[in-house]
């Protein structure tokens, strides 16, 4: 009897196609591209704002382009996916024990959604969106 363990190679790049949950994970991680790009757009916007009314007007004008609209729609989708996944995982990272019992995950997640809804409404109201 001789031992000769066989090591299976793991594809360095394509591994996340092996299971749907790995694809969902990758989608969650790739949300960073859109959140990062949006933050860079904020940096660019603050330059345009500092440069005066004309450049700010041009910045707003450029938002109307089809590619800008496409970016916004995609970014909103990924940002929402980030929000949902982040909230759903929060009770695992920050469990709350009251008395002897742990607060059910659903309560912690629900509280996050309520806070998120209120904050989003406050932002939209402050911005005069409605």
């Amino acid at each position: 009897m001789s031992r000769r363990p066989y090591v299976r190679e793991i594809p360095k790049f394509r591994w996340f196609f092996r299971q749907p949950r790995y694809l969902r994970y990758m989608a969650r991680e790739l949300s960073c591209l859109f959140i990062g790009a949006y933050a860079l757009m904020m940096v660019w916007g603050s330059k345009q704002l500092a440069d005066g009314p004309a450049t700010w007007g041009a910045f707003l004008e450029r938002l109307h382009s089809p590619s800008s609209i496409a970016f916004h729609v995609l970014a909103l989708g990924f940002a929402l996916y980030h929000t949902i996944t982040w909230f759903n995982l929060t009770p695992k990272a920050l469990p709350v024990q009251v008395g002897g019992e742990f607060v059910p995950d659903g309560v912690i997640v629900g509280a996050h959604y309520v806070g998120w809804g209120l904050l989003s409404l406050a932002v939209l109201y402050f911005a005069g969106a409605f």
Partner: protein
Amino acid sequence: MSERVVELEVLRYNPETDSEPHFQRYSVSCEEEWVVLDALNKIKETIDPTLSYRWSCHMAVCGSCGMMVNGEPKLACKAFLRTFDGVIRVEPLAHFPIERDLVTVIDDFVMKLKRVKPYLIPKQDKPVSEGEYLQTPAELKKYKQYTLCINCMLCYAACPEYGLIPNYIGPAAIALAHRYNQDSRDGGRDERQEEIAATEGVWDCSFVGACSEVCPEHVDPAGAIQQVKIKSMVDWYKEHLMPWVKK
């Protein structure tokens, strides 16, 4: 009781004759309520006595019969045949070397488990005459779920980061370290931090969450790992930004 013929495709590897593993197809008649392990036992008893695999309790307690069933890490004793359609593909647990057929080499996990000191390290020893170490129900709740771990290694087979970074200590070992850290009778956290707060400890985890999804005992290793990350972060900031706060 109704019987049906089940097709299984089992990954075979004989270290003495094979240069690499290959699938072998078996047709075996099974009872409707059988699990994959029953089908494997029937194959071994009636078709092919050379088939090798580990099992012991047949009731999801011993943690021996972990294997990939249709690409998903499962206990063969808990994987009901009726939940699968068509050919059932059975492979050894992913991310572990294959010793023979469905038997894997688990030394890596065992060594890592040892490193995190998964046992009580009392703050100070006291003689038996002073009585037990007492604990309230609330203190027990803090770590109870982690005691359900049966070391079956499904979480290691599910974790892509363990596959990519073999040095990563991994889900079960960290969850068990956390189990003892959370225990009010324990004083060993500082020693365990040397392992689990290292780069190869919790910091190789990217919170895929697969470990918790596949755990047959509903332990939540992913949660334990994030909690250790947060505590280690607090430790780090205390130590480096507030050196006057001494433990």
